[in-house]
């Protein structure tokens, strides 16, 4: 496992194959079973059921109390109603009417989750070590260590982490660390009725995803694209990656996320230079006369 994240190698013989999610949004039906299963299993507190008003979305985004979020995107665009089989005139008319009634509306649905990045900025900036890499290659917050400093919150390029106000600590998806230990799949994947959320070993999931995206593109879905499957991207590829039917930003996902740790050298060099300049400034000002 030479491409395993560094932290996993420290587990030695206890390291497990890296697991993750492949979320195939082309078969998501927006049932929210994943959101419910996640809340139930992980005892995530209720945080309101307010409709956004812009679509069928009523949880709006990931947060301390929403570890799975189903995005609903409504797009007005020409929808193909033909399926290749010659229609009778009656069938053709019926299909046309259906398309007109719907106003050529397309629904995109996608279940979002913590990406369990290979290079996880949240984990890097965590000063207490509460955020750690598990033997499965996932990223988990140790709730008995977290002191609620909040550094991981703006560090995450996806805005996944948040502080639970009444509790003071940060919370996020654990990829059901407890279930993994017992050989079970995460609650959301088990509850998903269409297999839009697929759980498994990452390598296997990636192969499956590449095949699926080729299939969809061949079937005339040019917007079909894999997101975060590439180990060469700014976060070293994600443990939870996606097949999307439009650009990531349409689903509320950053198109080219990076782990800012890669710029750490620049930042520290600038800091040392500034500290040196400050010291030189004080010395220059202070060694002069007293008047």
């Amino acid at each position, binding site marked *: 496992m030479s491409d395993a994240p560094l932290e996993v190698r420290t587990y030695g013989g206890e390291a497990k194959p890296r697991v993750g999610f492949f979320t195939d949004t082309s078969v998501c039906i927006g049932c929210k079973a994943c959101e419910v299963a996640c809340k139930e299993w992980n005892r995530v507190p209720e945080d309101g059921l307010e409709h956004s008003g812009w679509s069928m979305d009523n949880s709006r985004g990931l947060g301390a109390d929403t570890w799975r979020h189903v995005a609903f995107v409504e797009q007005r665009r020409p929808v193909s109603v033909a399926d290749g089989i010659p229609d009778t005139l009656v069938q053709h008319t019926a299909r046309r009417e259906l398309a007109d009634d719907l106003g050529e509306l397309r629904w995109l649905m996608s279940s979002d989750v913590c990406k369990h990045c290979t290079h996880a900025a949240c984990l890097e900036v965590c000063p*207490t070590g509460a955020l750690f890499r598990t033997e499965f290659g996932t990223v988990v917050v140790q709730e008995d260590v977290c002191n609620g400093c909040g550094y991981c919150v703006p560090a995450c390029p996806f805005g996944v982490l948040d502080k639970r106000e009444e*509790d003071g600590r940060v919370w996020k998806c654990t990829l059901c660390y407890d279930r993994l230990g017992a050989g079970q799949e995460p609650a959301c994947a088990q509850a998903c009725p269409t297999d839009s959320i697929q759980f498994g070993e990452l390598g296997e999931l990636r192969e499956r995803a590449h095949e699926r995206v080729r299939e969809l593109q061949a079937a005339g879905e040019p917007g079909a694209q894999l997101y975060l499957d590439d180990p060469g991207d700014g976060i070293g590829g994600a443990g939870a990656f996606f097949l999307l039917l439009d*650009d990531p930003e349409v689903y509320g996902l950053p198109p*080219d996320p990076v782990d800012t740790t890669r*710029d750490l050298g620049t930042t520290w060099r600038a800091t040392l230079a*500034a500290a040196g300049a400050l010291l030189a*400034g004080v010395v220059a000002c*202070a*060694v002069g006369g007293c008047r």
Partner: protein
Amino acid sequence: MSARGQATRTAAGRRSRDGGRERAMVPPGEPRSYYGEPILAQPVWTPEIPAYFFVGGLTGATAPLTLIASLRGNDVLARRAAAIVLAGSLASPVLLISDLGRPSRFLNMLRMFKVTSPMSVGSWILGSFGATAALSGARELLGLLPRGGRAAQGAGALLGPLLSTYTGALIAQTAVPAWHEARRELPFVFAAGSLSSAGAMAQLITPYERAAPARRMAVVGSVAELLAIRAMDRRLGPLGEPYHSGRVGIVARAAEILTGAGGAIVATAPRARRRRAAVAKTGAAALLAAALLERSAIFRAGFASAGDPRYTVGPQRERVRERARGGADGTGGRV
């Protein structure tokens, strides 16, 4: 579309001040988003954090002043500087701990040392700086530990500037565009603000005749601060918009005016003859207010930057486009 066209349009579609720059961070046209929802999470830090940036910065820059004033026999100034350092290193942890979601777990900050986490590095800097402040204070204020106190002052003089500047690294190492893209300049902005506010605070409580070093710090710091802010502005281009709009813009402008005015007032104080002490202290008060306002403007600008998906999506989409264009060279154009 031309590079010029890209640069002159800011994210909100208004014209940017430096029209001809070639580097476009936010391409023209509205980037797409999920119903305008932010991509990043808003920071959860409270106003104690910019207050700490101010107090910690001032405290850190005062440490080398303590050492040099003491070495040069300016005991009047050295005593006051040592007292500022001591008070600042007591106040700083209080501000930081009160911001924690679980204040009782503040010691977890010293559970490990992580160079990838400026907050971890900073906790160790602040902790060890506090020890030097106590020893230095014992020497200058109580006349105890002449040798140990001097050694501690030496260590404090080296740690202090790091205390003043690591906070710039702290906010730079986040995904917030207005902070991260300013990673080369933020530590300098904080260093300059620390220099001016440290000088201002020391001369505010020191008799005029003994405070010349502090006045020079205030003046040099205020000029450096204006220059550093300008450099940050240029680097950010359209991504710097949150520093100029809404209430943050008003606070930042007020900080800039007070910095310039405060520095000028302190610089001209010696010409005021009999009222020079009062004039210098007025300038010092302006500079202290300016440094605090500047830190809060930088802090709040990060919230605005994180809260608008255009700042996140725009530059990232542009990178993807650039890679697609440069894809033929075989490298994929990855940065």
